[in-house]
C-alpha cells in the first residue's frame, strides 16, 4: 500500500474515532505564525519506501509508536503541566495543592520528605533534620487525610514520588478516597514504585531486592484488580541520568528495569495485558536537544518492540510507552542562576519535541535551594510559552524525517540494545545491580563528565567559560527548621488516640503475610493503614521480616 493510501487508512481508522471523542484544539491555531496551515502529520515524499517507513516510524498512535503514543498528540490536548511540590506539614501542602487546583491545575504531584520515603516516622532518630525538608512529612493516615482535605479524589489525578513504601502510601490514598465516598475504580494517578533505580541511583531503598520486587508485583496486581485507571509504576530513568549516566545508559537501564518488572509480574502469575498498559515511564530532558529528542523516540520504538517480540503482547496499550519528563537538575548551575531559565527552556523543548505526556520544569534556583514562588512561576510559564507561542505543538513529531534526528534515533537504539544484551547475559537487571555493573557504568560516566568540565573539554557557560565579573544575585528560600516539633507531637497524638490493640493486631497480620512468600501484602497493609498504624510501624514490621538492604560502596 502506498504511503498516501496508508495515511487515508490511518486517518479513517485511527484518527477519526479519536477526534470524534476528543476534538482537536480550537484555542490554538493549527497553522504557522504567518498563516500557513499545518498538517496533522508530515510524511516522507511520495515514492519513498513505505514498508521501511512503517517498520521504523509508523503513524502516531500506531506500532512502533516512534512518532508518539496518540494519533493527534498535542493538537488534541497539550501535555500535562505537572509541577512536583510538597513541603513541611500536610496542612501546608494541602493549602498549596488547593491553591494550584483553584488556578486550574488538574494534576497533583506529591513530594514526600526523606523519612517518609525511607519508612521512618518523624520522631525516629534518623529523621533528625530531614522532617518536611524535601517534601511533605506523612506519618499515618491522619496526615494523608489532611493532605487531601477538601480535594475530591475522583476529580484530580495524583502522582506520588514514593518507592520503597509505595504500597503503604497507595493504601493510604485508597482509604482516604473511601472516606470521601470515592470508589477505587475512579482513582487516577501514579505511584513511582520503581525500587530498582533506588539501588542504582536514588538511594531511598529499604528492603533487599527480592521482597521489594514482591511488593512491586503485589501493587501491580492490586492496581489491575482494584484501580484500573491508576499507573502502578513510573519506571524512572530520570535519577539514573541525574546520577551521571549518559543518554544511552539512561535509555538502556530504564528499559532493563522495565523488563525486570514485567518478568517478575509474569512469574507471579499476572497476565501481560492485565498490567502492562498501566506501566508508565519517567525520563530526564537535558541540554543536548537533538540527542534528547532522539532518545525519547528511540525509547518508544524499543519498548513497543520489546513488548511485541519479547513478551508477545499485541495490545497497543501495552506496547505504547507513555512518559513523564523532568528537566535536568544536574545541568543547572549555581553560578549565574538566571541562565538556568534558558537551559530549562531547551530541556522543556526537547521533552515536547520528543512527545512527553507530562512535564515538570525545574526552577532556576535548583542548585541553590528549594525554589522560591517566583522561580516556580517562571518555570511554569516556560511550559506555557512553548505550548502557546512556539508552534511546535501544532503538528505531530515535527522533527521526524530530519536526517540527523532519525540517524540519532537509530544510533541510540542500537547502542542501548548493546547494554540490554549485556544485561541479559548477566542474568537480568536484578543480578546486574547485585554485581554493581550499572552503578559502575554510571559512576564512570559521571566522573568522565566532571573531568571534562575541569579540563575545559566540555564548556558550561558561567562555570568554566564566560564567567563574567561575578554571579548575579537572586533571592533564595531558606530551609525551614520548625516542622520537626509539630510533626513529632502529631504522630505521638495519633499513637495515643487510636485503638492500640486494633493497630497491633493488623501489624501482626501483616507480619504473618510477610512470612508467607505467596501471600498478598496489599490487603494487610490497607487494614494496618485503616487502623492508623504509622508508616514507621508498617515498614518496621516489614523490616523485621525482610531485613534491610545495605549498599556496598566502592569508589
Amino acid at each position, binding site marked *: 500500500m502506498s504511503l498516501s493510501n496508508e495515511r487515508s487508512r490511518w486517518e479513517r481508522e485511527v484518527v477519526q474515532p479519536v477526534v470524534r471523542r476528543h476534538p482537536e484544539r480550537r484555542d490554538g491555531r493549527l497553522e504557522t505564525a504567518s498563516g500557513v496551515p499545518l498538517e496533522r502529520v508530515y510524511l516522507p515524499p511520495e515514492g519513498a519506501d513505505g514498508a521501511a517507513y512503517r517498520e521504523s516510524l509508523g503513524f502516531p498512535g500506531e506500532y512502533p509508536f516512534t512518532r508518539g503514543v496518540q494519533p493527534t498528540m498535542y493538537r488534541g490536548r497539550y501535555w500535562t503541566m505537572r509541577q512536583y511540590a510538597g513541603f513541611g506539614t500536610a496542612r501546608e501542602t494541602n493549602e498549596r495543592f488547593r491553591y494550584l487546583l483553584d488556578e486550574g491545575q488538574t494534576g497533583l504531584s506529591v513530594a514526600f520528605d526523606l523519612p517518609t520515603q525511607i519508612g521512618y516516622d518523624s520522631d525516629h532518630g534518623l529523621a533528625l533534620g*530531614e522532617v518536611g525538608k524535601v517534601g511533605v512529612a506523612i506519618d499515618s493516615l491522619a496526615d494523608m487525610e489532611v493532605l487531601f482535605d477538601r480535594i475530591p479524589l475522583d476529580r484530580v489525578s495524583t502522582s506520588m514520588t514514593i518507592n520503597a513504601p509505595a504500597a503503604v502510601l497507595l493504601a493510604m490514598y485508597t482509604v482516604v478516597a473511601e472516606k470521601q465516598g470515592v470508589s477505587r475504580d475512579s482513582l487516577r494517578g501514579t505511584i513511582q514504585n520503581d525500587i530498582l533505580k533506588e539501588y542504582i541511583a536514588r*538511594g531511598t531503598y529499604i528492603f533487599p531486592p527480592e521482597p521489594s520486587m514482591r511488593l512491586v508485583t503485589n501493587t501491580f496486581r492490586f492496581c489491575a484488580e482494584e484501580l484500573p485507571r491508576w499507573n502502578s509504576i513510573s519506571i524512572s530513568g530520570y535519577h539514573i541520568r541525574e546520577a551521571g549516566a549518559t543518554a544511552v545508559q539512561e535509555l538502556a537501564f530504564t528499559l532493563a528495569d522495565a523488563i525486570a518488572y514485567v518478568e517478575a509480574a509474569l512469574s507471579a502469575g499476572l497476565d501481560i495485558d492485565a498490567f502492562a498498559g498501566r506501566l508508565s515511564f519517567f525520563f530526564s530532558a537535558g541540554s543536548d536537544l537533538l540527542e534528547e529528542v532522539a532518545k525519547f523516540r528511540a525509547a518508544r520504538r524499543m519498548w513497543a518492540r520489546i513488548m511485541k517480540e519479547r513478551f508477545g503482547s499485541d495490545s497497543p496499550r501495552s506496547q505504547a510507552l507513555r512518559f513523564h519528563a523532568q528537566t535536568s537538575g544536574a545541568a543547572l548551575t549555581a553560578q549565574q542562576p538566571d541562565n538556568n531559565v534558558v537551559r530549562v527552556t531547551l530541556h522543556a523543548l526537547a521533552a515536547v519535541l520528543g512527545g512527553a505526556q507530562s512535564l515538570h520544569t525545574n526552577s532556576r534556583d535548583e542548585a541553590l*535551594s528549594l525554589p522560591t514562588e517566583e522561580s516556580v512561576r517562571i518555570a511554569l510559564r516556560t511550559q506555557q510559552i512553548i505550548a502557546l507561542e512556539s508552534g511546535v505543538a501544532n503538528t505531530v513529531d515535527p522533527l521526524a524525517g530530519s536526517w540527523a534526528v532519525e540517524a540519532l534515533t537509530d544510533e541510540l537504539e542500537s547502542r542501548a540494545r548493546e547494554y540490554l544484551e549485556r544485561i541479559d547475559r548477566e542474568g537480568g537487571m536484578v543480578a546486574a545491580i547485585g554485581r554493581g555493573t550499572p552503578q559502575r557504568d554510571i*559512576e564512570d560516566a559521571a566522573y568522565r563528565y566532571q*573531568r571534562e568540565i575541569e579540563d575545559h573539554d566540555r564548556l558550561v557557560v558561567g562555570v568554566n567559560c564566560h564567567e563574567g565579573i561575578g554571579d548575579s544575585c537572586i533571592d533564595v528560600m531558606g530551609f525551614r527548621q520548625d516542622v520537626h516539633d509539630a510533626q513529632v507531637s502529631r504522630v505521638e497524638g495519633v499513637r495515643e488516640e487510636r485503638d492500640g490493640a486494633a493497630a497491633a493486631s493488623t501489624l501482626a497480620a501483616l507480619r504473618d503475610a510477610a512470612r508467607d512468600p505467596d501471600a498478598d501484602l496489599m490487603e494487610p497493609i490497607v487494614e494496618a493503614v485503616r487502623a492508623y498504624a504509622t508508616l514507621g510501624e508498617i515498614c518496621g514490621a516489614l523490616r523485621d521480616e525482610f531485613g534491610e538492604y545495605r549498599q556496598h560502596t566502592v*569508589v
Partner: protein
Amino acid sequence: MENTVRILIAKPGLDGHDRGAKYIARALRDAGYEVIYSGIRQTPEAIVEMAIQEDVQFVGLSLLSGAHMALFPRVVDLLREHDAGDIVVFGGGIIPGPDVYELQEAGVRAVFPPGTPIKKVIDFIEATRQELPAL
C-alpha cells in the same frame, strides 16, 4: 608534595544524592590523597567513629536535602567531644548563602558550592594542612 593526608568523604542524613560526593572522593584520590568514602545514609555518630578509626585529618560532608544545619554542626561537636576537634570539617551540597556563614561559625571550615573546581578543594586542603600537627 607529600600526600599522606587522609580524608573521609561522608554523606550524613537520609539524602541519596551522591554524585558530588563520589566525584570529590575520586578526584581527591587521583590528586594523591588517601580517601575513604562512607556511602549514603550515615548518622553523625557513625561518621565520627569512622573518622577516628580511619585516622583522617579531614572530613568532607555532602548533603543536598537541606538537613545540613542540623547535621554538619553535630559532626563538628561530636568530634570535639571525642577529643578529635583537630580534624578539619568541610562541606558541600545545596547550601543557601546565609547558612554558609552560620556553618562556618559552628566550626565547618569551608563550604563549597556546586560547580566548585576540584583545584579549589585541593588548595583548601593544602593551605589547611599546614596548621595540622606534623603528619
